[in-house]
């Protein structure tokens, strides 16, 4: 085996590092050869921005991604420990912090395993090789003969050096190389069901959330604003609030208003007193949002053009709608902010500490380098919810109280009233069938308001629009393909001979919107997969067979077949009032493949749906944590059932009226499916694929298809409520 060596002389300390890897030399040459680096190593190639090794043997791994309850901390630790060949317990992980970690943008789009996991894996492999070479120098042995295990380098003669003993001989202020070999799967934590490291504290009242964070000298704040976005308060009784017990300050900047008190309950009482002021609407909200979407000025973009089918008119066409949906975090958004010696620190459950730092610096008028945003877990967010706004609120209040850490939490009605929603949407689909019963042509048009108004500027924070003078919000932009926003997953994965898909981006936002888990994919996959069943029925084909007929990607075929087999699709017994449904998608046509099969029973008098067994198959590439993948898919399925069966945001001419869990119900235990099974198809030689959002669309479609199978009625307007089912079956 040839082991081409390269000698890298680094500036400054003139430290010399020898690489001696059994890898091709070509890819290594040239300064900053980051081209072949995976994930976010491309942006941050230096090893010490990802991994440091201490003399005590502790290894610290840095990620710019945040734990959102998806289990990313444990999965990234598994990846790092595996490639470093060190025990999991020897590795610590620091997550998203503008003062410490690499900038990996936002934790969104099911990118964490692909981007951060890929980067950490490669960086860890680099560090392990550098440790081997450090030991080789120490022992004057060729590195090729050395091995690693349990956090130590081992020589063939039995000598061993723990990584800590090599730390001083290690220089990680160098760029990662793309060509360092990975350790084989199978021997190490990757692929094993490692218990989540964050769960024990969450079960025993540990300081697990920013809501629990209590630095010395903490004071409690609440903000006061109208009952929902698009409203404003009239005259408020500031003097009355200031005189209330425990109130330290009333902070007012333009229309931004907050109370600060020693005790949390005191702050809430003062907030409630101020909140009783009359409010008025500042926005126009159309009654029929779907009619409005079709008529509103839109930017049309053809995102797939495979031409028109020969021979004319479509065989079938259908229109589908989705209402506005809420993230609906169980814990209202919260942040702690502390101004000390001109430096502002904000502990926040944002998905993007770096973009948020920029927005907050602008909001409070500090240079970015004087603002530090540190991720601290909150309740699950499922996208861009109130987290960033709450951080902006806390920051603005903290600026008025130098030296005091300020904890600001929204009330439930503020979370429901002010969070950016998942957009209402409309799709129109049409297709022709060939005489052989195949799709001859396909057309898909999607209308939606934006799916990304994440703040990088103060104008996109609620407080930014309230201060005087207000900051302007930059106009929203569509998210380009291949990821897409409203058009996410609008391009079918099926092989159709002719197809045209058009995105109609409506920039105006009658209700406040931004990224909600899976963005447009929930609606587009619901539409495509519903329509596939409608076409299968016309072609007198079995829905699973009809899908397989049009699917060429072997991994797609595998998950469809696996879900059908596990569900017992062929042997499923038909009974009156019962139906089975299937749905499939590859998230963004880039991420995990997911198929869902389920059965539903329809109560004929009320139209109530009882979901029975649900089976899913998922291919996320190499499965780092199979149970983590199962957990994410189970969660996506249950959440999507809630969206699909009961959820819709309501409003009137004055305000958003979905102000609590009574006005915006979500699924409760008695309405759960009978069971949810998830089969993980592991692909140990394939890259990690994002999993977290893969289940939303397929579940929605599977439910609609099962209802159609049970009743013979096709319901195309979400949510599929008992009332709509009842109306359809008469």
């Amino acid at each position, binding site marked *: 085996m040839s082991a081409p060596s390269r000698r890298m002389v680094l500036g400054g300390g003139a430290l010399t590092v020898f690489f001696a890897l059994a890898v091709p030399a070509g890819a290594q040459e040239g300064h900053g050869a980051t081209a072949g680096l995976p994930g976010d190593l491309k942006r941050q190639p230096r090893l010490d921005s990802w991994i440091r090794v201490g003399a005590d043997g502790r290894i610290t791994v840095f990620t710019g991604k945040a734990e*959102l*309850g*998806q*289990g990313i901390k444990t999965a990234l630790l598994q990846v790092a420990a595996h490639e470093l060949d060190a025990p999991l317990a020897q590795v610590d992980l620091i997550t998203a912090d503008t003062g410490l970690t690499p900038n990996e943008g936002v934790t969104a789009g099911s990118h964490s395993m692909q981007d951060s996991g890929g980067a950490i894996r490669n960086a860890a492999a680099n560090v392990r090789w550098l440790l081997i070479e450090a030991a080789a120098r120490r022992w004057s042995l060729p590195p090729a003969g050395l091995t690693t295990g349990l956090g130590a380098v081992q020589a063939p003669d039995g000598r061993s050096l723990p990584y800590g003993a090599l730390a001083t001989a290690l220089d990680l202020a160098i760029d990662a190389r793309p060509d360092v070999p990975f350790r084989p799967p199978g021997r190490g934590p990757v692929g094993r069901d490692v*218990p*989540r490291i*964050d*769960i*024990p*504290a*969450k*079960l*025993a*009242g*540990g300081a*697990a*959330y920013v*809501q*629990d964070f*209590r630095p010395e000298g903490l004071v*409690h704040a609440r903000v006061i604003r109208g009952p929902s976005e698009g409203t404003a308060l009239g005259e408020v009784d500031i003097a009355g609030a200031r005189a209330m017990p425990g109130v330290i300050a009333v902070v007012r900047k333009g229309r931004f208003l907050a109370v600060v008190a020693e*005790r*949390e*309950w005191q702050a*809430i009482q003062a907030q409630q007193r101020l909140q009783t002021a009359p409010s008025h609407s500042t926005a126009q909200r159309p009654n029929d949002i779907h009619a409005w979407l079709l008529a509103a000025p839109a930017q049309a973009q053809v995102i797939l053009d495979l031409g028109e089918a020969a021979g004319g008119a479509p065989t079938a066409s259908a229109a589908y709608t989705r209402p506005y949906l809420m993230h*609906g*975090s*169980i*814990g*209202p958004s919260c942040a702690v902010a502390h101004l000390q010696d001109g430096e502002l620190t904000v502990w926040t459950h944002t998905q993007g500490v770096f973009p948020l730092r920029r927005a907050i610096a602008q909001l409070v008028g500090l240079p970015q380098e004087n603002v530090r945003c540190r991720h601290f*877990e*909150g*309740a*699950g967010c*499922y996208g861009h919810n109130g987290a960033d706004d709450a951080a902006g609120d806390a920051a603005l209040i903290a600026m008025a109280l130098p030296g005091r850490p300020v904890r600001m*939490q929204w*009330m*439930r009605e503020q979370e429901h009233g002010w969070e950016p929603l998942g957009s209402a949407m409309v799709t129109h689909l049409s297709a022709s069938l060939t005489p052989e019963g195949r799709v001859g042509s396909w057309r898909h048009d999607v209308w939606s308001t934006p799916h990304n108004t994440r703040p990088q500027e103060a104008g996109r924070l609620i407080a930014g629009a309230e201060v005087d003078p207000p900051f302007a919000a930059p106009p929203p932009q569509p998210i380009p393909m291949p990821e897409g926003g409203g058009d996410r997953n609008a391009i079918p994965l099926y092989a159709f001979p002719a197809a045209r898909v058009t995105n109609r981006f409506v920039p105006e936002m009658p209700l406040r919107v931004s990224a909600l888990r899976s963005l447009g994919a929930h609606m587009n996959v619901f539409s495509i997969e519903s329509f596939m069943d409608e076409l299968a029925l016309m072609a007198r084909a079995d829905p699973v067979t009809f899908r397989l007929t049009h699917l060429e990607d072997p991994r797609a075929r595998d998950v469809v077949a696996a879900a059908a087999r596990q569900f017992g699709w062929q042997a499923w017994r038909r009974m009156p009032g019962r139906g089975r449904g299937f749905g499939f998608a590859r998230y963004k046509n880039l991420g995990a493949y997911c198929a869902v099969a389920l059965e539903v029973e329809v109560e004929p008098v009320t139209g109530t749906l009882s979901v029975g067994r649900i089976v899913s198959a998922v291919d996320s590439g190499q499965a780092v944590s199979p*149970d983590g993948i199962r*957990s*994410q898919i*189970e*969660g*996506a*399925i*249950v*959440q999507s059932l*809630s969206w699909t069966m009961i959820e819709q945001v309501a409003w009137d001419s004055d305000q958003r009226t979905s102000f*609590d*869990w*009574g006005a915006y119900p*979500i*699924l*409760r*235990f*008695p309405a*759960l*499916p009978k*069971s*949810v099974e998830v089969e993980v198809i592991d692909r140990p030689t394939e890259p990690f694929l994002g999993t977290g959002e893969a289940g939303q669309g397929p579940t929605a479609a599977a439910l609609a298809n099962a209802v159609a199978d049970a009743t013979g009625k096709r319901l195309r307007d979400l949510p599929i409520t008992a009332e709509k089912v009842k109306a359809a079956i008469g």
Partner: protein
Amino acid sequence: MTILRLNGSTRSVVSTPETPLLYVLRDELGLRGAKFGCGLGQCGACTVLLDDRPVFSCLTTLGSVGDRAVTTVEGLGTQTAPGPMQRAFEAEQAAQCGYCIAGMVMRAEGLLRKTPKPSEAEIRAALAPNLCRCGTHMRILRAVRHAAETTS
């Protein structure tokens, strides 16, 4: 000053009697298990036991507690020495974000104290007041069954 029987000991607290128990626990006593979710008794994130009965601590005033024993998730065990219900949730990995979990654990604890061997329907009915947004429900159900099977 109010005397509170809490997690096996007695504490005196200075919060006013109309203060919801949730803020007495979190803010005055520094306990973090019970969570603020809605303040309306709609989500159950704040669930604690009064004697053996689960209640919404966001709606229970300090003055109404009287001599009933308050149990929070901290009273069931610690991170290093978890109690049976906490162990069952850990064994089933029954948390995603976990913000609802302390409330779920207390709701389930209340169920098993009253009904040690509940049916599936009884578990689902008992957990109905508590919301989870991550969709961890199926694992939570498994954890409660697990706890019912391993405790006698």
